[in-house]
């Protein structure tokens, strides 16, 4: 028994050491300096755009007008701006910001497909999650990091204070990629768990293909799982932001010649000779798939952004998130 305990202690120590190493690699001093700078920039942005230091992004039944958006089935008729309707012949509803406490949940994809790219997609996703968590915690929001995948993952409690960022970074550094992506299950689980509407940010490559048992290979992917997941969260009133992270080689492949490709999520082998024609067809299929994802997000009023791992982390946060809904 004592020996078993000793072994468990040894395993823990090894895991801790690996986690420390990953943390040092992912979140080095440079990264932390960038976070500080990012936080200042975020504050400046918010001061310029919003009145208060801390305003919830939960638009709806508050006291203060925030924005317009197009009318959707189920919206309160009382919120319709009839003046605009008279002018434009289109239905828009008025949105108000409320001062209620905002919760941000970061759905982080930990499937095996995130383990590729240069830099690795998963590393970029973790850095992005850390940045968002840092910004959120500094804005006195509650931040939850929800890793998901087909393999079991650890959970982290909700972050409320800046002091909890250290443990958040440790947590992120200790995550590993494994298994298949099941975005629909992750969204359903989160939808069931959350009691109040929150901002849900999905950090994923959205590669979510299904492998039929009888064929043993991935069937053509579409956006069905994404649609199912978004539908469940939106039905619970959550605001959503989908950040699709893709490796540069996935967006603009340069492979040429004979290859044997191993699918990380399904462990299948594909032998093929890649030439310009096949690359063109690949890009065509990729565009169709990305357009499908974008269409699904648009249908549910979800902001959708994608970026390549080739873009530096800080640029990604500033250049893209600044244009996005979250920091607007």
């Amino acid at each position, binding site marked *: 028994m004592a020996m078993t305990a000793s072994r468990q202690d040894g395993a823990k120590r090894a895991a801790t050491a690996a986690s420390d190493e990953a943390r040092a690699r992912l979140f080095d001093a440079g990264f932390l300096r960038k976070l500080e700078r990012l936080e200042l920039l975020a504050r400046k942005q918010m001061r310029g755009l919003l009145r208060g230091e801390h305003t919830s992004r939960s638009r709806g039944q508050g006291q203060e007008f925030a924005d317009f958006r197009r009318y959707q089935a189920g919206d309160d008729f009382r919120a319709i701006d009839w003046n605009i309707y008279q002018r434009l012949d289109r239905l828009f509803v008025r949105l108000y910001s409320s001062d209620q406490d905002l919760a941000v949940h970061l759905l982080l994809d930990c499937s*095996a497909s995130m383990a590729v790219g240069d830099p690795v997609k998963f590393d970029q996703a973790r850095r992005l999650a850390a940045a968002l968590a840092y910004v959120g915690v500094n804005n006195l929001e509650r931040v939850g990091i929800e890793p998901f995948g087909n393999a079991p993952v650890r959970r982290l409690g909700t972050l409320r204070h800046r002091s909890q960022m250290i443990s958040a970074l440790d947590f992120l550094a200790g995550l590993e990629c494994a298994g298949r992506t099941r975005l629909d299950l992750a969204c359903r689980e989160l939808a069931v768990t959350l009691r109040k509407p929150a901002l849900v940010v999905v950090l994923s490559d959205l590669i979510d293909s299904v492998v039929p048992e009888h064929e043993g290979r*991935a069937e053509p992917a579409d956006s069905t799982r994404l649609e199912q997941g978004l539908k469940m969260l939106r039905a619970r009133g959550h605001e959503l932001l989908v950040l699709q992270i893709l490796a540069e080689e996935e967006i603009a492949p340069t492979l040429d*010649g004979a290859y*044997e490709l191993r699918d990380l*999520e399904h462990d299948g082998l594909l032998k093929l000779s890649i030439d310009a024609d*096949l690359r063109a067809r690949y890009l065509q299929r990729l565009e169709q798939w990305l357009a499908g994802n974008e269409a699904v997000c648009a249908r549910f009023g979800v902001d959708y952004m994608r970026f390549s791992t080739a873009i530096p982390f800080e640029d990604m946060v500033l250049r893209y998130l600044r244009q996005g809904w979250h920091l607007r």
Partner: protein
Amino acid sequence: MISFADPSGLLALLSVPVLLVLFCLRPMRRRMVSSTTFLWREALAERRHGPGLGRLLRDPSLLLLLVAAVALSLALADPRWVGMTGRSGDQVLVIDVSASMRSPLRDATRFELAMAEVARRVQGKSADSQVLLIASGSRPRLLGGFESDPERLTRMLAELRVTDEAGDPRAALSLALSMVNGRPGARVHFFTDGAFDADPALRALAVEFHTIAGPAPNVAIGGFDIRRRYASSEQFEVMVRISNHADERVEVPVSATLEEVELFQREVSLEARSSETLVLPFQGDPSGVAHARIDIEDALPSDNVAQVVMPAQRPLRVLLFSSGNSVLQQALLALPAVTTRLSEIVESLYANQVAHHDLVVFDGVEPPSLPPGRYLFIDAVPPDAPFERTGRVLDQAVEGRGRSALVRDLDITGLKVASAIRVGFRGEVEPDRVQNLFWSAQTPLALSWLDEQRRVVYLGFDLGVSDFATRAAFPLWFHASVRWLQPLAAPEPATHLRTGQRKRILLPGEQQRLIVVTPDQRYLRVPLTRDDKAPAPRQPAWREVDFDQTALAGVYRYFEGEDRRYFAVNLSDESESDLSSRAELPEAGTQTYEQPPARSETPLWPWLAGLVALLLLLEWWLWGGRRVVA
């Protein structure tokens, strides 16, 4: 059973190692991990649904391979670029080396003048042109292959000698024209004295004739021979034919000697362009080397002498075991050069008796055994033969005869035999060993049989109980049978050949070397080929060797076992001895030939092979050169 109509097609198997090498050199697929393969799978599936050929042709690597395959196929088909070119400088120089070229012209011989002209042509040729040299004697002879190096050509010419052969220009020119076939613009030049009969076909040939001729009165021995007279081995006749090829009458002293013994000497007067044949009988032993000479200074000395070798005659030794048969003894006596010994079988001496005779005749007597040798059985059956006595039959008539040379021309129709041995064959008979010569309704009457060591002629009845001995067919059959039994012991004719003619030399089987000494005292070692070493049916084994280096007139000698043998070679060609240029050949440069435009064929396969290599390298680069590892 599998057979191959064209076994050379199996050479295609050589492509197997090439394919193996190419396969080994081919880069392996690079293994990579991918976040997902579904997009690639969809792209692949979409491409598979596209137009097949178009899809294939969009792959530059495949296109290159296809072009390489086509180029390789073309290369294997050996394509040639056919074009029209001007004349090349290639030449075939045919030099007449026949006996008439020995005749003098100005300060040299015709041959020397011809060689000088040939040498000038060789030295004056262009550097890239090639020359082929052919000597035209009784047979055309290539002095080498097409050669562009003047020094080598000069060395070839230096080894060329004029011969005593009669020329055959048509054969030489046919060979020369066949050699220029496929060499556009190549020309044939013939350097000759034109001392051969006019041949219209030669004038039509695309040949430039260079005639070196001049007046050359000549008197020649056109024929010389010695023959034995059939009546007696001591009597013989000498035949000499003298021809005057000059345009004026000549008086010629003619003499003949046999082993330095003068046979005759007389003066012969010959009109212009006439001949005379002398036949003179003589008595004595005609064996040895005989010479005939005419004592005259003319243009061609080599036909002023002729030789004949008369082989020493060894009598045929016949041993006759008989109780007395006058017909048989008379028949043996009638054969030339035969010594017959009548004896009885003494068993203790029998083997020795047989070994010391060329032919053993059993007349009504059957021997205890049949050692190696030659035998004639009359009214007796040989032991160990494939046929055996089965009884006796009476009053037989000949009903048929076989196709053997022993009975081919015999008239034995209605031949009656009062009593004959009845024989039957033992088992199956090999037709090339036993031949039925003639037969009655009930039994073979005459047979021939041979094996590796014995030859036997069998006559199944006594000559006294048949009318065979009284017929004209009997001496013919008897003579033919004796010759078949002892071919080498038969009297040989005089041994002499014409220059250039092939001499067939018979050697004992155990002789491993043959050296022939020529009239100019050169020792020529004659290779004994495998075929020459094949044993002849006769024992001991004999081999036949062909000797064809008989370009010089004179006496040749060699060893047959331990016996020295001679044979004589003479020009003996009236046409060749006539040195006047009568071929009516056009001079070089005076005749225009309708020569078709020269076709030049340039093989393209080396270029195609290079293209294949280049394409494969390019394909290789496309395949493995632009690799990107993600």
